[in-house]
């Protein structure tokens, strides 16, 4: 298996701000490769450099062996791209959008007819081909946008937060599509800030403040965290995090929804000491139970360990 995407020390500055800082990774053919991180972590900037929308300040990137600086025009024929914002033409019908992208990607004749059928069926838009795209529900629009982005059957597909704003059901069916594209050999690079979505990726790049914090499969990322994690139910999670930070035996405390996840060196000792510590501050403590490390826990721990702060 060769590498579909090779990235070496890719960097982009905007003035003094380093949006992407010496990022290096490879993506194998047919892999689903995810970027996970908060807003401003550099996910979108990385994708834009690889799709030729932004020039890198320094470093190298290759897509299917083509250099992102020199061969941007040729790369654009071999990739599909779906931007963060829904970006089909709302005032064109479903068919007219397909026609436009077919023209731009040079798909025509019998191949276009076959691809059109595939897109319409995949997006669940049979019978709605003449409807204005702007009138479709968001989930349908996003599937149509994906269909238009892969109309020319590109070997590499870039999706920038493809499921933001759609409901969980639509997100699940969108992922079935991504999986089937990947099974058919398409390499998929996507960014997300949904942790549960990140679990579906074959490999995951954790990004924070422009840097690559860790890169591995989701199970192995979780295994990076050897210390146990306790989930603490408490009435005021932000104050609890404040109280626990720096307490003896506590390595890390962070918000997790309305609960607090505490990374500890000794689970049994901490379970005994935490309630007293919190109740002394006037907080009411509910259940405390060990939980499996989530990717978010890993993320927070790795970022702290690297001496950084999580933003966003």
């Amino acid at each position, binding site marked *: 298996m060769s590498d579909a995407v090779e990235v070496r020390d890719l960097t982009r500055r*905007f003035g003094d701000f380093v949006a992407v800082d010496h990022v290096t990774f490879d993506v194998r053919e047919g892999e689903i490769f995810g970027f996970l991180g908060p807003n401003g972590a550099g996910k979108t900037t990385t994708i*834009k450099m690889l*799709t*030729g*929308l*932004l*020039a890198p300040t320094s470093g190298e990137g290759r897509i299917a062996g083509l250099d992102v600086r020199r061969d941007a*025009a040729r790369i*654009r*024929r071999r*990739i599909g*791209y*779906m*931007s963060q*914002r*829904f*970006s*089909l*033409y*709302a*005032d*064109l019908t479903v068919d*007219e959008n397909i*026609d*436009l*992208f*077919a*023209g*731009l*990607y*040079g798909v*025509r004749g019998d191949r276009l007819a076959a691809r059109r059928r595939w897109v319409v069926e995949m997006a669940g838009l049979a019978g709605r081909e003449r409807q204005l795209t702007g009138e479709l529900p968001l989930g349908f629009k996003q599937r149509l946008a994906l269909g238009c982005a892969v109309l020319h059957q590109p070997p590499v597909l*870039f999706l920038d937060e493809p499921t933001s704003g759609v409901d969980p059901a639509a997100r699940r069916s969108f992922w079935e599509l991504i999986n089937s594209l990947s099974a058919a050999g398409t390499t998929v690079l996507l960014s997300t800030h949904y942790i549960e979505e990140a679990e579906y990726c074959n490999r995951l790049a954790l990004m924070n403040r422009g840097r690559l914090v860790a890169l591995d499969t989701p199970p192995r990322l979780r295994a990076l965290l050897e210390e146990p994690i306790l989930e603490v139910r408490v009435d005021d999670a932000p104050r609890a995090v404040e109280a626990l930070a720096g307490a003896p035996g506590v390595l890390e405390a962070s918000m997790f929804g309305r609960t607090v996840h505490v990374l500890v060196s000794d689970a049994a000792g901490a379970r005994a000491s935490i309630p007293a510590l919190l109740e002394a501050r006037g907080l009411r403590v509910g259940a405390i139970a060990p939980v499996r490390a989530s990717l978010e826990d890993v993320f927070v721990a790795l970022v702290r360990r690297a001496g950084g702060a999580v933003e966003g």
Partner: protein
Amino acid sequence: MDAVRLLAIARKEWIQLRRDVRSMVLAFALPVALLLFFGYAITWDVHDIRIAVLDQDASRQSRELVEALEASGYFHVTQRLSGYGDVDARLARGEVRGVLVVPPGFARDLAAGRDAAVQLLVDGGDANTATIAVSYAEAIVAGYSRGVVLQGRRIEIPARAEARVWYNPRLESRWMIVPGLIAVIMSVIAAMLTALTIAREWERGTMEQLAATPVGRLEVVLGKLVPYLGIGLFDVAMATLAGTLVFGVPLRGGILLLGVLSLLFLLGALGLGIFISAALRSQVLAMQVSMVATYLPAILLSGFLFDIAGMPAPLRLVTRIIPARYFVAVTRGIFLKGVGLEVLWPQAVSMIVFAAVGLALATRSFRKEIA
């Protein structure tokens, strides 16, 4: 350059245009509406000047003189006064533009072969109309009788100046206005049509999607130009029809030449709109800037209203970069003089330069880097 991609953009642009009411009005209704509106509103000819008459002589001759004024079509007697006291008030309130005073003894002086003076008091607030009114009145009074003197100015046997005016023998100002107006309107409409097109793509986020496809900058710019070029030429044709049929302006030159030179002009003007749109990335801003950037220069500096030869030297220099200037010369030349490229070639060359600059600016400004 790939024709398939270019056409894909052109077709998409045409469909979007068809579904956008604002653009459709701008493209098809506004040019002819503006032509009709300005064609009727702007005129340097003076008709039906409202005047009052203070006839202190009340003779057959004085009545004949007033009738002669009315019969000319230039004056319309709306009031008859009985004393000088009313004159100032009527003029001040703008009820009339002038008052003709026929003094007592007018008929007697005329019969005796003496100078018979009448007085025309004119509202000088509108100096232009006042001058024209006085000269019309002088001519009419002189025509009535050589013995009648207006405003104390004695008119001897009128010396006939053998003046002949070419191209526009009746000196109809509309003939001068309508061809120039077509050029002015098309400058404004063309830039406004394309001002929206790229900014809209930025605002809606579709530019990012386009930029990630293999389509090139020149393909996008030309693809977007194609439908608007068609509309622009259609507008010129409609304006030409309206100018000749409604306003009776002659079209003496070649239609083909008019079409080709219009095409050249539109390329530059539409390119300018795309440049503004791409540089500003906001539909509202681009619309306003393209209005200001085209409308005022086209009206003031194109030679449409003010003769360029009469401008101070620095301003004359500025007019050289106003594309409407060349198009005004072209439409007037083709409509009124019936001249061809042998005369209009400098304008044609300037318009080719303008088109090249417009397209280059449009393509350059359309950066594909998307932060």
